[in-house]
């Protein structure tokens, strides 16, 4: 934000307003009320400066009383009270000034004339304050719309970025090289299993590449991708990896961004199972409550392995993708409890794609 340039423009506007106000007031004082021109300038200049102060001071009550967020009568009451008090003070100061001018220039009628036009000045002060109110509300509204626009742009950029990193993350080179190494070992030990693993790997790659192009997929499809992924990891980890799955049918039809859960499984393998010599389990469960879908991925975890992944990149990406699609309606929580690590997602249950 270019705060200093907005401030400069504001000050320039204020100076122009002050000169105009003073000019008009002085002219009126001379032509309509028959004041001596020196007395008119001496009175109009400080009063104009004060008037600008009054208009500018409206900024604070405007900020604390944003339009649309409080009852209109409250806002009106605040501003009318402020306008009355400020115009009263303004005219009061003017009266004192008029007395000084009389004694300073050796005149006698300035004070008298001032008293005669007092009601007009009350009205002017009152209106000028309200003018200030209008001006500030306009500025705030403009700023708010600009910020909203920036936020919208930013969230689009974030969504795009999350999408890209999700695509990149779908094939982790580590996973790929380790799987190829397993196949390399199996070719002589157990050729049939080597072939099975090649097929499983090909299936997994085909599925992930196809999914990357879609905006949402049913949970059931994501689950079958996870099953493929686990089948491959099971070749590597053998008995060390156990998978548990509890997905009711009414949850399977719900939609979610593709590959949202895959990084969570990868985390569970890399930071959970792979860190425990005797292995462990990964449990995927989902429940649908009316319009909400909650999905959780839990895994065995070694608290002493020291891998604190609550702020990991993978987790952050999942969070960002959720935010990009559902905004505040989605929630992600990750916590370690004794020897279980749990990531829970809650988001709106949608069964057909909404624009």
């Amino acid at each position, binding site marked *: 934000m270019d705060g200093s340039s907005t401030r400069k423009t504001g000050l320039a506007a204020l100076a122009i307003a002050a000169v105009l106000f003073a000019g008009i007031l002085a002219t009126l004082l001379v032509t309509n009320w028959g004041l001596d021109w020196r007395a008119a300038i001496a009175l109009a200049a400080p009063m104009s400066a004060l008037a600008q102060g009054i208009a500018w001071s409206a900024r604070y009550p405007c900020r604390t009383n944003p339009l649309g967020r409080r009852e209109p009568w409250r806002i009106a009451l605040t501003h009318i009270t402020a306008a009355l008090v400020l115009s009263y003070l303004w005219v009061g100061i003017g009266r004192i000034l008029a007395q000084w001018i009389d004694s300073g220039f050796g005149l006698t009628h300035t004070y008298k004339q001032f008293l005669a036009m007092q009601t007009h000045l009350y009205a002017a002060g009152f209106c000028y304050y309200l003018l200030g109110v209008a001006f500030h509300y306009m500025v705030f509204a403009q700023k708010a719309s600009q910020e909203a626009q920036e936020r919208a742009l930013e969230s689009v950029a974030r969504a795009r970025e999350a999408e890209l990193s999700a695509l990149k993350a779908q094939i982790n080179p580590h996973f790929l*090289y380790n799987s190829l190494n397993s196949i390399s070992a199996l070719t002589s030990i157990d050729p049939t299993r080597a072939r099975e693993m090649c097929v499983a790997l090909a299936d997994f790659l085909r599925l992930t590449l196809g999914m990357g192009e879609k905006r949402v997929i049913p949970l059931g499809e994501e689950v079958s991708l996870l099953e493929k992924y686990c089948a491959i990891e099971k070749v590597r980890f053998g008995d060390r990896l156990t998978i548990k799955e509890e997905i009711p049918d009414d949850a399977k039809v719900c939609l979610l961004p593709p590959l949202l859960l895959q990084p969570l499984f990868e985390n569970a393998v890399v930071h959970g199972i*792979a860190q425990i010599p005797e292995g462990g389990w990964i449990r995927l469960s989902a429940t649908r409550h009316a319009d909400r879908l909650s999905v959780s991925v839990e895994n065995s975890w070694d608290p002493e392995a020291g891998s604190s992944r609550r702020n990991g990149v993978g987790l952050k990406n999942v969070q960002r993708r959720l935010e990009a699609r559902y905004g505040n309606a989605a929630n992600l929580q990750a916590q370690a409890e004794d020897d279980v690590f749990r990531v829970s997602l809650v988001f709106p249950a949608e069964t057909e794609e909404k624009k």
Partner: protein
Amino acid sequence: MSGSRQKWKALIVDDEELARKLLREMLSSHPEIEIAAECGNGMEAVKATTEYKPDLLFLDVQMPKLTGFDVLELIERDNVGVIFVTAYDQYAMKAFEVHAVDYLLKPFSRERFEAALERAKHQKPKREVDPAELGAAARPAGQYAERIVVKDGTKVTLIPVMKLDYAEALDDYVSLATEGKKHLKQQTISGLELALDPRLFVRIHRSYLVNLERVTRIEPYGKDSKVAILTNGVRLPVSRAGYARLKALLDEKN
């Protein structure tokens, strides 16, 4: 070492059974090499190394509990040829290249395997490679050790860095004070300093590295030296340079 010796003893360390089987298979055409043991994790590897005194070590990097670098820190490295075996890991590979340590990248070809084996047989083990530095080089920039591995006799202890109160240099060793106990480790204090997050640990003296969170206050001591008083009441000397470092760090925090 030369090729004249009769049998080579090798140890295969990998947490994946298939990966171990693959190495065993490739070694089967080398009658001069005897596989003393297969280890599924770093702890077993440390134990087996003491027990069998192998000449060759095939060492995976990513393993539960102890990584390959940890294992290297904990074993007697005289006369052991080490070949790291790892899947793609850009940081580990960079570390190997910087320290000229041999490694096999999974999956590897037979030719690549034979070449590594030949080199390990004929090359004197690199004593100048400091395993702690190797481990430090294998971490992405800005990332530091989360725990310190120590071996007392045959027992391996993992000290989470936040539980370390302070470290004291004792010749070639460092004494690590944690939870009222002290552990000795063969490492230089500078090597240890390199592995730890400089925002959490400060070298307050040539011989002392302290956990910033343990420092409660600093008091003058003598004419121009100072002492740091820790939460458990321990008093450590602070040198002038150490005081400047400590102060800069505390100022940065506030």
